């Protein structure tokens, strides 16, 4: 199989650079996305489907927020921490966002090292990514614990509309689930990289596929952050 020796340079050489290339790819036989692994194409399509799930969650959240009869709690006050005697709004979320965005950086580097067939660096960066993801989930657990101890519940909360707690726990919970799955997924793939599985079968694109999922989870967080915490 010739694509097992695929490198990024091959991509650059053969990549169509015009609308003509797009049309010719879609009008030829065999493959629409030339030399793209089946798993990679499938992951892209899955992420498109998952995008619709998160879009529906966020749209529903906006709808209930707009239509609720009780005022919506102020996120800046609810999500504030008291540090060194100072009340700092959104500080925990800022740190969580920073951690997650950083993990995208390490993941991108892992993919790069994967294409260079650098087994150890790839595995190390993937473990680092998983660790950052784990930090994110841990901070989220801390955030949930704090809110619950202050009286927030999915069916009620001390600050205003009951839909606040409902949407908060549902959406961050669903995203947290994605991150948790991602951490497990990355750990498994990183371990296989370290064991040299992909050096033997040549399928280093598995690293990139895992990366696609991870970047997606990060991107979704940006939207949750913007719509839930900043609005």
């Amino acid at each position, binding site marked *: 199989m010739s694509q097992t020796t695929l490198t990024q340079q091959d991509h650059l050489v053969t990549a169509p650079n015009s609308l003509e290339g797009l049309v010719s790819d879609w009008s030829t036989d065999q493959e629409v996305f030339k030399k793209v692994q*089946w798993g990679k194409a499938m992951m892209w399509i899955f992420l498109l489907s998952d995008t619709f799930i998160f879009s529906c969650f966020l749209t529903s959240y906006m709808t209930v927020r707009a239509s609720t009869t009780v005022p919506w709690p102020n996120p800046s006050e609810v999500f504030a921490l008291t540090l060194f005697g100072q009340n700092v709004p959104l500080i925990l979320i800022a740190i969580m966002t920073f951690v997650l965005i950083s993990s995208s950086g390490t993941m991108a580097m892992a993919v790069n090292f994967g294409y260079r067939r650098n087994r150890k660096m790839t595995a190390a960066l993937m473990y680092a990514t998983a660790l950052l993801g784990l930090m994110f989930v841990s901070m989220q657990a801390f955030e949930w614990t704090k809110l619950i101890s202050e009286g927030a519940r999915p069916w009620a909360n001390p600050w205003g509309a009951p839909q606040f707690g409902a949407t908060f726990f549902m959406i961050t919970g669903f995203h947290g689930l994605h991150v948790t799955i991602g951490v497990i997924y990355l750990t498994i793939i990183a371990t296989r990289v370290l064991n040299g599985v992909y050096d033997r079968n040549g399928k280093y694109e598995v690293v990139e596929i895992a990366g696609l999922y991870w970047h997606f989870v990060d991107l979704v967080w940006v939207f949750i952050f913007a719509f839930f915490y900043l609005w």
Partner: protein
Amino acid sequence: MSYSTIAEDTRPLHHPKTWVGKYVWSQDHKVIALQYTITAVSVGLVALVLSGLMRLQLGFPGMIQFITPEAYYQFVTMHGMIMVIYLLTALLLGGFGNYMIPLMIGARDMVFPYVNMLSFWVYLLSVIVLMASFFVPGGPTGAGWTLYPPQAITAGTPGATWGIILMLASLAIFIVAFTMGGLNYVTTVLQARTRGMTLMRMPCTVWGIFVATILGLLAFPALLVAAVMMMLDRLIGTSFFMPSIISMGEPLAHSGGSPILFQHLFWFFGHPEVYIVALPAFGIVSDLISTHARKNIFGYRMMVWAIIIIGGLSFVVWAHHMYVSGMNPYFGFFFATSTLIIAVPTAIKVYNWILTLWRGDIHLRVPMLFAIGFIFTFIHGGLTGLFLGNVSVDVPLSDTYFVVGHFHMVMGVSPILVVFGAIYHWYPKITGRMWNKMLGQLHFWITFIGVYLIYLPMHYLGLLGVPRRYYEMGDTDFVPASAQWANEAITVAALTVGVAQLIFFYNLIHSYFKGPKADPNPWGATSLEWQTPQTPPVHGNWGPTLPTVYRWAYDYSVPGAAQDFIPQNVPPEDMAQDHETRGPAVVEE
């Protein structure tokens, strides 16, 4: 730029040795397709029996003691949900999609056979969870197949304790199963076609299933989200869909939720769902008509683009199911417009089917009878759809039997006729045996005439103002006595059609064991699934090398050709020595 694709990888497939590996935990797309089909048809028979019980109550109120009002609503709900999702969606995509896609595009299997196998087993789990709701305290949910809150989860609705929970869980599981299958179908069509098989050489069947699968992958998320939120409302006490409400004299703990939000989510799934069922049927019927009329499908490119355009438009029409829901009235204008625009590509398809028949060499074999029957019922249901798409006409008709008649005609009967036609069409390839012609024709005529006897009077009842969803009419002034006669006649017709399906099952099962051996290509069809080296096709489909495609799927009655069909893998004479030629392919038309 020449390279060998993954599909051309010559490593041998993993052939299972044991009976269990071949037929139970099978990763062969053809076995999975049959597993899907048998499961879907079995659960569909349950829904058919439920509809018979409903008709008995409507035609002869009170005749059967155990059909209480609660039971009636449970039957309505389960009938609708099973037919739409667990029968039609699973059969057309899980069944026909699985069987036809790899064979028609010249692949050995789906791209991820293991995921494909999981898809079926998870689907089976969703069916088991759904069926379990018949045996829990309170029985299955009686919320209506649309499951509208708040009534779906408030006390007083049948099955509000356990039935609704199992229904929502089953839907969520089904969506997981569909996603695993759907990702496979889409990736297979995009990335695993054989040499020479361009997108614009694919048979319409593959196009219909392909676009329908994309719709499913983008529409089922809305249902999943709605199911999760309603589950939270029911189990944890959130108020996504629940406003402040007094139930049985007691205020409930909910407040501030939006029932309309559920309807938007449900129909954002629900309308594309109509086309998830319809588009594969459109595709299959195009191929049946073309094959049995010995003529190329009229306007192939237009047919393909119509499928794509219908698919796209189906995402912007959902609120035409909600004209009477209390949403902002200005929405009605937008959604009525977009709904009527869909009639344009749909009409193109209907005209092209008829123009394909025009001056064709029509063979009125059983599959063709069902295909032509489909054109009738689909035009019928489509035209009443134009009535209901307009807000001012829909408002008085919305809660009447007119709607029941309309959507059973367009979404129930039409796809089912295609399913019958398709089963008769491909049965010889799938089993290697031929069914009985007499029984097939008998099945067609009883079914076709029967569905008109069932659904035409319903339109009349609807125009009289007879409301749907009612357990019995009682003494209602504006409903004349003749309406009850019509109801009795409908019930008799419905039971007759229901029982007549036994002919179909007898024919299939008897022919499987005793039928005459079938020709590998009994209809003289061009598409690849008829050109397999073995009939029925074996695991791996194609033997050592994949077929090469040289032409579109519709070379029927080509002037000067030896036969009245040229299979897709027959090379043109001048290219016979040069099988390796494969530049950007040109579609001969």
